[in-house]
């Protein structure tokens, strides 16, 4: 006949053991978490030869599940296609990374920055200048 007391005692021994372990709490503003290398945070447009690699092929807005990317193509001085307007609305973005996978010219990557809080709704729409990667 199963004894109701032994499992309770064993459980209580485990919880008491936890009191003596080191807590896993991170004291947030003073200590920041370490993110993984491939962590999907804020996007960054890669730059080469002093201009963004983006060719405005419209693949990333097409694949985006949340429809948060707005692209408008333009013609630059070398008659090449480039993104005149590139905006990502961080309030709609679900940080899935499909846009990075879809890009054929490897112009988009995701950094490890996750602290994106802001005071006004307009500040959440990241324009091309804010998205350019910082060198």
């Amino acid at each position, binding site marked *: 006949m199963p004894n109701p007391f032994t499992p*309770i005692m064993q*459980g*209580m021994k*485990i*919880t*008491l053991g*936890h*009191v003596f*372990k*080191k*807590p*896993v*709490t991170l004291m947030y503003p003073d200590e920041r978490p370490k993110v993984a290398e491939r962590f999907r945070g804020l996007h960054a447009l890669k730059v080469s030869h002093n201009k963004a690699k983006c060719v405005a092929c419209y693949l990333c807005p097409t694949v985006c599940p949340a429809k948060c990317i707005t692209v408008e193509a333009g013609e630059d001085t070398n008659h090449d296609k480039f993104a005149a307007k590139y905006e990502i609305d961080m309030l709609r973005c679900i940080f899935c990374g499909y846009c990075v996978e879809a890009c054929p010219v490897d112009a988009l990557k995701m950094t490890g920055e996750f602290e994106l809080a802001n005071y006004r709704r307009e500040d959440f729409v990241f324009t091309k200048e804010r998205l350019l990667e910082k060198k």
Partner: protein
Amino acid sequence: MGIEILGLPLYYYIAMVAKVLIAFVFVLLTVAYATYAERKIIGWMQVRIGPNRTGPMGLLQPIADGLKLFFKEEIIPSEANKFAFLLAPLVALIPAFITFAVIPFGDTIKIFGYDVPLQIVGYYDAGVGKVVDMNVGVLYVLAMSSLGVYGIVLAGWASNSKYSLIGGLRSSAQMISYELAAGLAIIPVFMLVESLSLQEIIKAQAGMKWFIWNSPMTFVAGMIFYVATLAEVNRTPFDLPEAETELVSGFCTEYSSMKYAMFFMAEYANMVTVSAVMVTLFLGGWDGPFVSAIPWLSPLYFIAKVYFLMFLAMWIRATLPRYRYDQLMHLGWKVMLPTTLALIVVTAVAGHFGFYTFSGLFGN
């Protein structure tokens, strides 16, 4: 000091008022810091730290919580019965404090040459010549704990909300069922001591012969009593009225600010009271090593034991999942009630044959 009021010297009244103030302040502080201790202890048991930002190590957390609740808006539903609505938290809270009047929290100590028994209730028996304890102490305790149920029923009913009513009914049904088991579980203790007076019960346990380990019948009685009182104060694993219905459909749904705070203070105050009763009946009250030589140690032993029992309640809360309502009722009526009744019969039979304790030192 020749002043006599009602035939008793003035120092008697001064001592009584002082004891009341000390006991009241002690229970209030314990209740406030029990909320803090619970969050910290349960945090450590879950491999995390509890509150640590308000004040050094989070010690000002209860004060912050109290202030927050104090400043909240006072909402009374328009269709609620105002008088009962405002009365309910009081009826839930006051019995918890009142029960402390009979609990002896220390031995008789000498202050300025007067013998002061560390118990609030007492009457001066001119025949004996000293202050004597109330000789139906335990009956008083049981009666007061039954009053607490009224607060819950009143709260659920006066809120004029269907969910509050059902939550209140469930909670009060739970409390009543476990009060039965708790009341019956104490009977073996009376059979050993042959008195209802709490002072007598503590004297019978003097010299570390506490009931929890000195006799097999009172050992089982103690275990059952502890679990029954956990169920009565709605602590996990029996906290269904408080958790499933947490702030949504429960007897205290319609309460805001201070009245809500009073209900939750009532829960912790009940926990303190019930731990104090268990300490007095089963753990020897203020008894401990060297207490006859140094009477001032007795309140410290009492407080240490009460805090240990509260720690045990928090430890259990951190470990066990919750009982479903029907499992809870099954446990109260079909498991505990027959067990306590059988225990009474066994104690009576064993006592008749002179075997009360392991060492057989108690006669019939």
